[in-house]
């Protein structure tokens, strides 16, 4: 998920009231569906074979992990996971029981911590960013373009630049090791992308709606809450998914500001298991798979939003 932190390609999701959209796709109108009748499904056996091979190649690593996580310790550490395929009845869920609750660093606790970190770290920046995006889109003020270009520039800045001083700052505030430290750090790191995505989306909303609200005497505050937020729902959802996956999968922010104590999140826990190597592959693979469950669920159930968030901006080119 590093890519979601390096955006450029993630602005304005489609599907929304966008009156002015026809123009900028220009000659690309006749896209997409026409192809289905034309070329799709006409693949020869070679194409099918190559794609199938690539898919198998892409999937094998994860399957190996998944199979191993259900094998008993001696089998997992003494023979290849592919040998277990011949004997599926030997599989067990003991590894999960141990990794989740009875191990040295229970994953269940880390799962809760990850949740406690990720949900506020997703929701809080969205709200703040939405207000800023509104101002950047619908208000005129000196310095507007300059501020926004600063934001665009910040999109590519590596988070590493902020870690040491932020750790010292939070140390002075006495919040290192507490959840609020991670929430604040993620709010800061995610802010440029959030404002960028939301502003790009809002600028595709029909200006006429806002104008008429103004004529009816609505204040900016009302327009924002009653009109813009509901209309920006697809962009808000897209960003929420990005930010949630990013925070959930993040290692370093959690490692630095929460550390390995009682508040340890799943990625930090897993990295610790990988580093010590003492626990055997059966537990390691179970732990690894547990860290992946949440993002995979989010990803598979909201793939549409996820992909829409990524595509429309970049394809616009």
């Amino acid at each position: 998920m590093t890519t979601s932190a390096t955006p450029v390609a993630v602005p304005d999701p489609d599907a929304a009231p966008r009156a002015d959209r026809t123009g900028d796709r220009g000659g690309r109108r006749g896209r997409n569906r026409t192809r289905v009748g034309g070329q799709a499904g006409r693949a020869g056996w070679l194409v099918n074979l190559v794609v199938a091979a690539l898919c198998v190649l892409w999937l094998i690593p994860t399957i190996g992990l998944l199979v191993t996580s259900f094998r008993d310790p001696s089998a997992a550490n003494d023979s290849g996971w592919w040998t277990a395929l011949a004997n599926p009845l030997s599989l067990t869920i003991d590894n999960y029981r141990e990794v989740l609750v009875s191990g040295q660093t229970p994953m269940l606790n880390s799962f809760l911590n990850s949740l406690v970190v990720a949900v506020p770290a997703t929701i809080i920046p969205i709200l703040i960013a939405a207000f800023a995006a509104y101002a950047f889109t619908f208000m005129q003020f000196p310095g507007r373009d300059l501020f926004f270009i600063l934001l665009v520039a910040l999109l590519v800045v590596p988070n590493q630049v902020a870690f040491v001083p932020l750790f010292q700052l939070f140390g002075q505030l006495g919040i290192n090791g507490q959840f609020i430290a991670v929430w604040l750090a993620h709010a800061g790191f995610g802010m440029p992308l959030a404002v960028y995505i939301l502003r790009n989306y809002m600028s595709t909303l029909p200006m006429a709606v806002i104008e008429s609200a103004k004529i009816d005497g609505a204040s900016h505050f009302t327009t924002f809450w009653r009109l813009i937020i509901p209309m920006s729902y697809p962009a808000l959802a897209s960003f929420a998914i990005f930010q949630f996956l990013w925070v959930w999968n993040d290692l370093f922010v959690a490692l630095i500001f929460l550390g390995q104590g009682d508040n340890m999140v799943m990625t930090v826990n897993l990295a610790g298991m990988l580093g010590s190597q003492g626990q055997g592959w059966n537990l390691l693979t179970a732990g690894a798979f547990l860290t992946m469950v949440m993002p995979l669920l989010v990803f598979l159930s909201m793939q549409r939003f996820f992909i829409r968030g990524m595509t429309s901006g970049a394809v616009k080119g």
Partner: protein
Amino acid sequence: MIKIINALLAIGGGVLGAMLLFWVLNKLVEMLPRKWEARVKPYVFIGPALFAITVFLLYPAFQTVVASFANDDTTAWVGLRNYTSLLASREFQTTLINTLMWTLIVPVVTVALGLLVATLADRLTPGGEKVSKTLIFMPMAISMVGASAIWGFIYAVRPAAENQIGILNAVVTATGADPVNWLQMSNVKINTFLLMIVFIWTQVGYAMVLLSAAIKGVPEDTIEAGRIDGANERQIFSRIIVPQVWPTLITVFVTVLIGTMKTADIVYVMTNGNFSTNIVGAAFFVEMFKNMDNGRASAIVVMLMLAIIPVMVYQVKQFRAQEANR
């Protein structure tokens, strides 16, 4: 339990707090004379976002530049010593070479593979296309630590006398050769390439999704026209499709390039930068956690920042061009 309540409070507090903050500020501004209200209000709206960026990103970045000229715990100035000692050390030179290799190889391979899958999947039946694209895309949802665990298992090694449990060594020993300790194999940079594979595995799906959307955006009539003029499939691909998806291709390339320059997790978790595999992004964390040297860590990140500035300039230029077309 306390944690969950705590989190709920944070969500509620954060959301309500932010709403309240904006509401209060908004009310205060509305008490100003009308002319001033219009002038001040935009800054009230962008204020909290700018505050977050300034306090959690800009100010720390500035501090990092300062710290890069100071000693390990930022208590005394050392001038350029962090930079000179880093650049003179054999170890950091290796790190720079590795980083260069990553940035030269990873984005190109990622985009090429993404383009390949996008092109081929476009020709499958709709069902086949959906399944294959989901499979290739899935690693994107997995954390870099999770990917490291997955691939660490592929590269696992056992003594020659025992059964191999890593699939790569199982293949190697099946041919009769001795098992290889892949991640420590710095000959011809094999271990660095193996780490790159992990990163590429997570990124190809991203390239594929964007390029696939672009390929579907190529108007059918341009392809038809090519066919009528007697172009074969390869010519249609290279002369008609590729030129039309080129802008997307560049965007994807630049995005993956930036991600590659910044990435750290895989190297940090899989080798901790040992066995000549370190890259700049990970070297920062090794310096910070293992050597506890804020000065050198800061100097590393400043150098990374300098390397990223050209990309940043390019991005800003792109953005302005895009705005001009709006």
